[in-house]
């Protein structure tokens, strides 16, 4: 950016004075927002985000990404392999395994015995999608979703796997998807962050995975693009509450005094950064009002609460987060990231998987239905997935259902997507009879990222940021848009 353009983005003193009747803070904020292309008055020279206009026609304006931390078993939920039933307990044929690496948790196991799905499968919807009986609510939206059975990744452990999905690299340090989107497209609302994150946990708090804050980090992008975590305890957003004893009205007065003093300083030193600061304090004030309103789900009518299930009023539950995701989508938040832990079922699959499905199946399906009935699904891309899948063979004692489970399996796993230009009622890709190898239409993590960006109107090769001499992008140096997934 040259000095002229840079200067045009800065608010001049004259503009401030001309609109001072609205209050200094409000004017400064309006000017900031104009920079982000959010007001009608903004000219074409004030791009919303770095891209200005998107590369292509966007099918989706926002993303809701449900990331099931720990890797739900595709064998038990999505990838129907009826032939396994007869082979229960038999070793995984070497011709299938082909010497692939295992984690150190099963690498020394004597036998890799096949464990068929623990619940029956049935066909659903007009499309006849096979789904486990553990997912009755997902079954009810079968015709809306596109099930990709041929996802594959490079990571074999959780943190690197999740980091790979979110940032395109296994090591922490690169910007996450939402940060890229904020950087590329800018903000679409003036009272909430562009990128919001919520986390929840299985009822039994069974797993040890941690929600690292780099999962929503901005990496080398400016830190204003990082995700804002909505918390399940205390303040919904950190530091959103005024200090005890300060009323909103009193705070308003103090902020006016602050803006006045800052404005006086701007008169003397002329640094446009001061005006930006005045605007940011104003936006902070607005956020303080809108966040508590947003997180109070009691204003929802009963039939909506019922749609999401009984857990919906418990703050921090997956159901609550799903409802909050819809409310954030309505407000124009660009990237909403829901992470739910507790799927790492190495030794408790038969007990834990069912509970997890009970807790997550209804809310996720409700979110899709709720978006749909409001007309929001058309331009909201909803993604349901995890960092990898689980092995078809049993980990632990085959004969003791109380303590066995499945190990990590990056070679194939399932995700589903809907809305925002995705073709519903479709199954894409296929695996062998053991759900162990992809036999058709593989989709790599980078392909998935490229496709999601494409739906948002972004060419994944052209949303880049130069850092340490290299033009980085979400898809690293790979990625092909999977156009078959697009309606």
């Amino acid at each position, binding site marked *: 950016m*040259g*000095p*002229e*353009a840079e*200067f045009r983005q*800065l608010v001049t*003193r004259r503009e401030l004075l001309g609109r001072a009747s609205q209050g200094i803070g409000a004017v400064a904020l309006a000017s900031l927002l104009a920079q982000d292309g959010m007001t009608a008055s903004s000219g074409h020279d004030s791009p919303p985000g770095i891209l200005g206009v998107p590369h292509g026609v966007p099918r989706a304006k926002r993303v809701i990404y449900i990331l099931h931390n720990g890797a739900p078993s595709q064998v038990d939920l999505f990838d129907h392999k009826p032939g396994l039933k007869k082979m229960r307990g038999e070793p995984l044929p070497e011709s299938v395994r082909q010497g692939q690496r295992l*984690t*150190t948790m099963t690498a020394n196991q004597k036998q890799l015995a096949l464990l068929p799905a623990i619940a029956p499968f049935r066909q659903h919807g007009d499309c006849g999608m096979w789904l486990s009986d553990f997912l009755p609510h997902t079954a009810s939206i079968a015709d809306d979703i596109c099930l990709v059975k041929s996802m594959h990744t490079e990571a*074999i*452990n*959780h*943190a690197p796997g999740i980091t790979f999905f979110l940032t395109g690299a296994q*090591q*922490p*340090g690169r910007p996450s998807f939402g940060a890229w989107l904020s950087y590329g497209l800018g903000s679409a609302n003036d009272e909430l962050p562009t990128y919001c994150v919520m986390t929840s*946990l299985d009822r039994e*708090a069974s797993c*040890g995975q*941690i*929600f*690292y804050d780099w999962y929503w*980090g901005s990496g080398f992008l*400016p*830190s204003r693009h990082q995700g*804002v*975590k909505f918390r*399940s*305890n*205390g303040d919904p957003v*950190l*530091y959103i509450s005024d*200090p005890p*004893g*300060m*009323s909103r009205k*009193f705070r308003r*007065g103090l902020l006016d*005094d*602050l803006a006045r*003093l*800052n404005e*006086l*300083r701007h008169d003397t*030193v*002329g*640094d*446009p*950064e001061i005006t*930006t*600061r005045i605007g*940011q*304090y104003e936006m*902070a004030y607005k*956020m*303080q009002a809108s966040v508590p309103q947003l997180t109070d789900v009691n204003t929802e009518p009963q039939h909506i609460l019922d749609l999401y299930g009984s857990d919906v009023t418990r703050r921090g539950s997956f159901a609550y987060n799903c409802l909050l995701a819809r409310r954030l989508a309505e407000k124009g938040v660009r990237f909403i990231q829901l992470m739910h832990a507790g799927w790492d079922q190495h030794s408790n699959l038969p007990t834990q998987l069912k509970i997890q499905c009970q807790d997550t199946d209804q809310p996720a399906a409700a979110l899709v239905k709720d978006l749909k009935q409001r007309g929001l699904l058309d331009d909201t891309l909803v993604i349901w997935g995890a960092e990898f899948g689980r092995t078809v063979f049993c980990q632990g004692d085959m004969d003791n259902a109380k303590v066995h489970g499945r190990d*990590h399996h990056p070679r194939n796993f399932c995700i589903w997507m809907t809305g925002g230009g995705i073709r519903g009622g479709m199954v894409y890709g296929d695996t062998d009879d053991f759900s162990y190898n992809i036999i058709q239409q593989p989709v790599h993590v980078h392909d998935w990222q490229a496709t999601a960006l494409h739906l948002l109107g972004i060419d994944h090769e052209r949303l880049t940021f130069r850092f*340490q*001499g*290299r033009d980085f992008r979400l898809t690293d140096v790979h990625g092909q848009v999977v156009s078959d997934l697009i309606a």
Partner: protein
Amino acid sequence: MSGYILTNRIKKDRVIVSHGTAWSPWWCWALCQVRALCQGNGLLVTALIFGMTFGMTSTLGVVTCSGQDGVDFAREIRPILSNYCFECHGPDRAARQADLRLDVSAGLFAEAESGVIPVVPGQPDQSELLLRVTSDDIDQRMPPAEAGRVLDVDQVLLLRRWIQQGAIWQQHWSWKSPVRPQLPTVSDSDWPAGAIDCFVLARLDGEKQIHSPPAVMETLIRRVTYDLTGLPPSLNQLDRVLQDPSPDAYTKEVDRLLATPRVGEHLAWAWLDAARYGDTNGYQGDLTRTMWPWREWVIDAINANLPFDQFTTEQLAGDLLENATVDQQIASGFHRNVPLNGEGGRIAEESRVEYVVDRVETTATVWMGLTAGCARCHDHKYDSLTQREFYQLFAYFNNIDESGNVDSGGNAKPVMKVPVKEKMYQVQTVQRQLEKQEAKLADLSANTDSQDAQQWEQQLLAGQQMEPLWGGWKFLGPILADSVGHGHNKQYGPETVGDASLGYRDRIWEDKYWPDGKAVVMPLVPSSVGYAYRQVRVSIPTSVEVTVGADNAVRLWVNGIEVLEKITSGGANTEQEKITLELQIGVHDVLMKISNRAGTGGFYFETTLQGLLPEIKKILSTPKVQRTEDQEQRFTELYWQSVPELQDLTYQIRRLQGRLQQLQKETHVETMVMRERVEPRETYLLVRGRYDHLDKSEKLSPEVPATLPAIPEGAAKNRLGLARWLMAKEHPLTARVAVNRYWQALFGTGLVATSEDFGSRGEQPSHPDLLDWLATEYVRLHWDRKALLRKLVTTRTYGQDSGATSESFKLDPKNRLLGRGPRFRLPVQVLRDQALAMSGLLVETIGGPSVKPYQPKGIWAEFSFGKIQYTNDSGPNLFRRTLYTFWRRSAGPANIFDNSDRQVCSVRPRRTNTPLQALVLLNDKTYVEAARMLAQRILNLEVETSKERLVIAFRIATARRPTTTEQAALDRCLERSRGYFQEHPAAVEQLLAVGQARSDIRLDRVELASYASVMNVILNLDETVTRE
């Protein structure tokens, strides 16, 4: 293509035109190119003419040295080739197309495979390169269409002129050793205070810009105090300098500041970011490690002004120095700061390789501004670093005696025990006290009459005088804890102080009549701890069996030494724990701590005399004549101790001994250091960077990249040799990269803005000659850090006023020409430190383990599913400098923003401006408490009016007096606050209750709350958070 880009082009073209170098005939050709490139967009041509008519200044930021001097290959041509050509025709062999290489002169000027010559000096029309980038033929044109990049017209013009002028080729600027440049002539020879100012002024002259007037002294003192110490100037300091009439008042102050230990603390921060320092390992589990001794070393080394070459040697290879001291080994921990992955199922070798890669990348970034990471998987695409060379660098760090596992508690081997200075000091103090008391005892003993000894022996034999005398219990509590385990493990004072007379905060010891041998209910609430304390007096060494039961956890100390530690699940029962105490003559302290989970809590305590200690029994049962000399001496000693006057002394001695024993356990901690394996590990190139894809065709040994100078004669092929090589005078990068970071710290942006990348894709220096002058100067100063800093902050350039007209901001928004003083927001750690300093809360202890100041409730529980709890410290640890804040990698401190997350090496500061930052500064407990304490501070001043108070507060924050209008705004703010709090008495108490620091009870509560609110505003002023 936007209109803006074109305008920009035209501006540069204007420069060319005005210099008259190349107007026509190929100007017309260039115009055609514009049309061709823009596919005949008529609008653009209009814009072109517009631009030519109304000339504008040249682009700032990136250097544009077009004009009289001819085209500079290194600064103008190489970046074009690098950005547009190197990807397919550069250093990366695997990606190279048509076997054409344009990053070396041989490739540029020799006949290519196809028979054409890319560049024919003096002959633009015969140079294939130029023909290709301007070709109309889509199949011929370079870069190819799919690359999505097109050279713009002035780039083409530059290339053409460069070829016309003879196509002089040079090495990339930063890979040539810096040569001390001649001082340029300047328009105003009075202005420069030295060489640095000359270079700056020359550049301003060249752009027809002017420098700014000097900043006022208040501003300058504030600026330099922040820059050197990270803290605000005190009013005393400020007034002293302002009242000093001598011309060197400023430089004297600089020298004084440079001598304070605050410098080491402040400069250490950036080094910690570069070294990716953290207090935990990161990844799953995120265990706590002990690397703070390394941090302490950094602070001390900077304060001692250890020259940067020696500093480097010890950071990279302190362990390899001959007879390496403990400190030098600690220093080598620089590269042990890498995050460690202890995730279950993880392959250790995969982790280990990641650590070694990280070390190569970090070393390259910190010392050479080199982006080595690219070459992990393939040859570097833009800079001369092959994949093979990457693994030769890798070999330097591949022989550490580490497994890839987290195998020594939270640390990973190699580790070493290192002394904790503070504890060592305490040991010395206690030892001195002990010696004194022992001397007294010896003195007294010598004068004690021993005639009653026999009678005493008779009593003992008769079984008298044996029953210990137990004193009554005292109770301290309840003290609230987060959980039973937390309360059980946290030290609240009694167990560390070893002095039961001290209470805990507002709690004091109360007498309790608790019976032995019965379950006692203590006055505890759920999740709390209580202490019980009693003494026992023993007249002859006896053993006593103690039975203890606890609800729910117990710790028991006798004379400061822990003898029991247990967490139970049920209530307090008899027979839970039995321990036998061997008690010598004298008074003994018995301290018990009970942690309660829920409901009521308490304990069971009973003692049973077991009789004399066997040793004593044996002496007594031996007839006096048959006793050995030792036995006789022991007997006399025992007798002496039984004398009441001596008992108090022995009691004192015993307590000191207990304290000493406890302290001696704490005098050393284990920290991670570098250590080489005895059996060297073999190094191979890793195909695609994969840990398990070794290219066994060639064994690699430590070596440095071929484009850089060779390893100095006689230097070892290990990390020590690597350090020597980096610090060699002819190394082109080390000094430049180092001085650039200092420049960045003082001026907000480095002379090379991309301080992490000096390669061909990095930004060109804004002042190349100045950078080289500084680099050679740093070497000339023998890498004396403080001398260099002194030089920088005493320049005219540094001392300029940072205010500017809108016009000036318009011309040079980022101040790359340095025509005004640097003005930017203070780094986040300085924001917190200044709030603590201004409020008087700052605790200035240097070094030591990390501390836990305020964080929002549940901050760690949230991400770890409640498995890890954050409990802030209390007392002084809340108010230490931010440098000492415990850094958990999986969730860094919540009120730290715009900082490296300490996962990977980071050398460039971030500076953004967001609403979330505003929320921290407005609402975080740290800042609200600081506002209250700053209010208290000024309310306690002996001044008459509120006006005066506000002036002082404003000065504390900004170093200057408010103007009349500002004063009016502050007054209004105070009136607003008073009005509010007078009407809301409950709000007063709520606001004043924030934070642990106590409010002065003599102050009027409404006034205090009102001032606290105004201080909250003052601490949030743009000027307060900005270093002007």
